[in-house]
């Protein structure tokens, strides 16, 4: 029987009421007295030298308050990068300066040049016409291989070239790797692209800056997944405001998917401008602006090779990837193609030798950083595609070749530096085959054939590393921050709890699921637990929400803080019942003395803690409030088997996704309804990448997919109903809830499953097509079928 409360229950979400009645409080809903409006004037060229900026005519317009240029930000730090990668020669990556506003040069379409602050948003926009900005256009580098060519135009004049780093990783004995390829029975090689994407949370970014002269305190309201990270980066590295004079609030946030992790210039601009002007300043991104100023995702070009023996056992994997950084380094950009990509190249398999090479490249494009999955989709896509190709070349079944190579014993240390704690890949594969009626596929394919269509089935098995991350480990790898999480549990006198978490919810439903955890631990009704997040003024320092880390890391902090509360409450209960502390048990909100009928209710203990008339003051302090910081011992390793069934129209090349089955192992699950919703959303984004979405530049660096007119967001009628299963459970061994994380899985496992399905359909139709780069638009599929 499904549970109806606590851990494992599909509780309806409490946050839904405000969202369904139009009473949510998103950043753009915040309007402060006396607020002015900022409009950012951005480069419409990919590369150019700024000769002059004349703001006088714009500033003379009635209602224009001030026009800021780079000169106004002298003494202000640039946007910092949060991760330093060391290259394969032991040298630090090349790290360019990233000014708040363009200094001397513009380096991508969308690079901010000036900020117009005016009485209304319309006036600020209109005044842009009165600016006189003289820029000489320079040749732009857009393609990564062009950018690395000798004599290529440099994105940053003060760097040696456009190579950010050349990173090598994995098996150290390169001769052994080479020997495995030289002596292999068969080597399968695949060259592919992982298409550039735009995260596109439905809420565009917004920032509102405020300054209180009486307290010298700045406040930033912003659409962020991690307000404490923004406070630290902006306060310490950009504006020089100590944390106790800077408050960052991320209220209701309308989706993130990675794009709202980073510290963006606009946040510093409005905070700086509010203080300079002595009034609140608000900036609201338009969607068109979001396309050129939100960090993009993916954009890898890869060659992967897989060496096998004659039974199809994997002997070695070697990959060579070019990863686009864009024009500047966004907050976590250098870590994505390296530590979040290379470390996953073992997949679910026992491949003994793995070597990964990544060249990160600067181009005159919008910066690229993490997007849902971040490195892991890129790893999974190339591995699961090359395995499918290998199966075909070896005459093996795609299920069988995977099963033959699955890791079955845990813990398992891979050749790429991570140790998987648990997993059961045969179980997820079994679940996929059962739930997708794989056995009935041939009959369905025959029916499609009779209808003149080509049906295909594609499989992918994924591993991901979530719950980022052990601080000591990521520190060694170049992270410039710790990656713990925090929680403060404040029990009120009458027994209700306020839980303040460093995690941030922007669609994940933490207000519901976190309350389920705390309520179950104490044995009280969930309505007694309130979850507070998103405001640095009332939450402990936490690193926020990304990388499927909230429950695995933030939830663990929550458990630790609640354990401290329970331990202290037991001491109080022992005093009240004149019993030994060791004899106190807590169940269903009642403290009892083991082996007796003595009991005292939760609410009586909490009241005693705050009204300590009869209280052991000499032994414990009054009050009931505890904080815990949890630093994980390892990553968590969710895994799963995904299956996609497609039909291809041979006349047009149009691909229809008929069914998609996801069989995941997320470890323990707190709220199955929310978990399944996360999988659905991830699948839609992964199917979107594989079928529809493409962020495309022309050769001059103009973004030609810069609105929803040209960037194909998945719509309801592009997608099938999904079949999801999370019945395979191998709990995480190193966090107290045994949870692994579920936010990114769908986006990681689905692209290779879909592409494998289309290739399967084409092969069944007699078309010798080995690969098509995403997105699989009708034009690309038709062209592949017709040579």
């Amino acid at each position, binding site marked *: 029987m*499904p549970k109806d409360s606590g851990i494992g229950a*599909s509780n*309806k*979400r409490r*946050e*839904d*009421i*405000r*969202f*369904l*009645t*139009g*009473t*949510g409080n*998103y950043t*753009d*809903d915040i309007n402060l007295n006396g607020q002015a409006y900022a409009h950012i004037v951005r480069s419409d060229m990919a590369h150019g030298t700024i000769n002059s900026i004349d703001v006088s005519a714009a500033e003379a317009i009635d209602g224009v308050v001030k026009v800021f240029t780079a000169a106004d930000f002298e003494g202000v730090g640039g946007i910092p990068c949060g991760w330093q990668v060391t290259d394969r020669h032991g040298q630090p990556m090349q790290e360019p300066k990233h000014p708040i506003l363009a200094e001397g040069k513009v380096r991508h379409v969308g690079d901010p040049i000036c900020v117009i602050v005016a009485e209304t948003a*319309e006036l600020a926009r209109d005044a842009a016409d009165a600016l006189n900005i003289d820029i000489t256009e320079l040749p732009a580098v857009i393609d990564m291989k062009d950018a690395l060519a000798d004599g290529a135009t440099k994105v940053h004049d003060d760097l040696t070239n456009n190579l950010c780093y050349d990173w090598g990783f994995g098996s150290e004995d390169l001769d052994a790797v080479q020997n495995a390829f030289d002596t292999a029975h068969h080597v399968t090689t695949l060259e592919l692209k992982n298409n550039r994407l735009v995260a*596109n*949370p*439905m*809420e*565009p970014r917004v920032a509102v800056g405020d300054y209180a002269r009486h307290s010298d305190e700045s406040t930033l309201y912003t659409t962020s997944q991690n307000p404490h990270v923004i406070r630290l980066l902006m306060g310490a590295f950009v504006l020089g405001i100590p944390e106790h004079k800077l408050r960052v609030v991320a209220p*209701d*946030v*309308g*989706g993130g*998917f990675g794009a709202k992790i980073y510290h963006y210039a606009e946040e510093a601009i409005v905070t700086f401008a509010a203080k300079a002007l002595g009034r609140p300043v608000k900036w*609201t991104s*338009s*969607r*068109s602006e979001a396309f050129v100023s939100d960090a993009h995702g993916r954009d890898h070009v890869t060659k992967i090779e897989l060496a096998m023996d004659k039974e199809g056992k994997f002997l070695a994997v070697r990959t060579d990837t070019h990863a686009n950084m864009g024009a500047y380094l966004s907050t976590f950009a250098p870590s994505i193609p390296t530590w979040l990509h290379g470390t996953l190249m073992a997949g679910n398999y026992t491949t003994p030798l793995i070597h990964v090479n990544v060249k990160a490249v600067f181009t005159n494009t919008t910066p690229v950083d993490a997007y849902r999955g971040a490195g892991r989709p890129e790893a999974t896509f190339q591995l699961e595609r090359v395995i499918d190709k290998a199966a075909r070349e070896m005459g093996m079944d795609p299920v069988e070749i995977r099963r033959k190579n699955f890791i079955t014993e845990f813990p398992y240390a891979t050749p790429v530096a991570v140790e998987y704690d648990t997993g059961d890949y045969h179980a997820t594969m079994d679940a996929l085959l059962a739930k997708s009626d794989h056995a009935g596929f041939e009959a369905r394919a025959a029916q499609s054939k009779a209808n003149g269509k080509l049906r295909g089935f594609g499989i992918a098995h994924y591993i991901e590393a979530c719950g980022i991350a052990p601080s000591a480990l990521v520190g060694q790898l170049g992270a410039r921050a710790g990656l713990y999480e925090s929680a403060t549990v404040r029990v009120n006198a009458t027994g209700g709890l306020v839980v303040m978490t460093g995690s941030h919810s*922007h*669609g*994940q*439903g933490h207000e519901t699921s976190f309350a389920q955890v705390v309520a179950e631990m104490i044995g009280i009704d969930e309505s007694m637990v309130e979850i507070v997040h998103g405001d640095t003024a009332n939450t402990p320092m936490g690193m926020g929400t990304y990388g499927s880390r909230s429950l695995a890391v933030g939830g663990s902090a929550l458990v630790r803080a609640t354990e401290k509360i329970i331990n202290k409450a037991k001491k109080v209960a022992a005093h009240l019942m004149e019993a030994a502390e060791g004899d106190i048990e807590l169940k269903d909100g009642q403290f009892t003395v083991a082996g007796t009928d003595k009991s005292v209710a939760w609410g009586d203990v909490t009241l005693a803690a705050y009204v300590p008339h009869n209280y052991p003051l000499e032994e414990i302090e009054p009050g009931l409030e505890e904080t815990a910081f949890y630093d994980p011992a390892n990553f968590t390793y969710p895994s799963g088997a995904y299956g996609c069934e497609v039909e291809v129209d041979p006349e047009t090349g149009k691909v229809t996704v008929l069914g998609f089955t996801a069989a995941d192992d997320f470890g323990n699950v707190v709220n*199955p*309804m*929310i978990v*399944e*919703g996360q999988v*659905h*959303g991830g*699948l*839609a*984004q992964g199917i979107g990448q594989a079928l529809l979405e493409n962020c495309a530049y022309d050769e001059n660096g103009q973004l030609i997919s810069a*609105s*929803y*007119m040209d960037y194909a*967001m*998945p*719509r*309801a*009628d592009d*997608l099938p*109903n*999904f*079949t*999801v299963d999370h019945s395979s459970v191998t709990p995480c061994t190193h966090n107290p809830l045994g949870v692994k994380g579920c936010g990114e899985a*769908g986006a990681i496992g689905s692209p290779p499953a879909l592409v494998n399905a289309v290739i399967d359909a084409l092969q069944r139709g007699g078309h010798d097509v080995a690969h098509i780069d995403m997105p699989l638009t009708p034009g690309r599929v038709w062209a592949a079928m017709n040579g």
Partner: protein
Amino acid sequence: MAKISMTVNGKAVSGEVEGRTLLSAFLRDDQGLTGTHIGCDTSQCGACNVHVNGVNVKSCTMLAAEADGAEVTTIEGMSNADGSLSVVQQAFQDYHGLQCGFCTPGMVMTAAALLKENPKPTEAEVRAYLEGNICRCTGYHNIVKAIMAASGQDVMPVAAE
């Protein structure tokens, strides 16, 4: 500037607007009805959908002056008279048809318009009708289910499918 008046959620309101002021801006900025959201600038996303004289429209695609004299319903006017959730709103909660909530007001307005036109839609009809509303969180799966449930048709339980 033009003086306009209209009925919003049953209440007579008026204001002075520029000719270029969009209905979405009038509702959000002048009337403080911030449940209507702006998710794009090309009339693609549907986060700003409201009902004007009973017709489901993108309020970013209509000038405020065009709505002079109209009856407008926004998400803030969709609950039952006693403040409880309407059938459509309740179905979205029951079937987890929303995550971040940003597209949700437009989705609810569109779903209500669909069920008025077509009280027992097929799933394919629901998906086709949602063509003008983009959601980035849910993959639409549970939105479709919520709308089917709101129409009184049987759907699978919310979790553990």
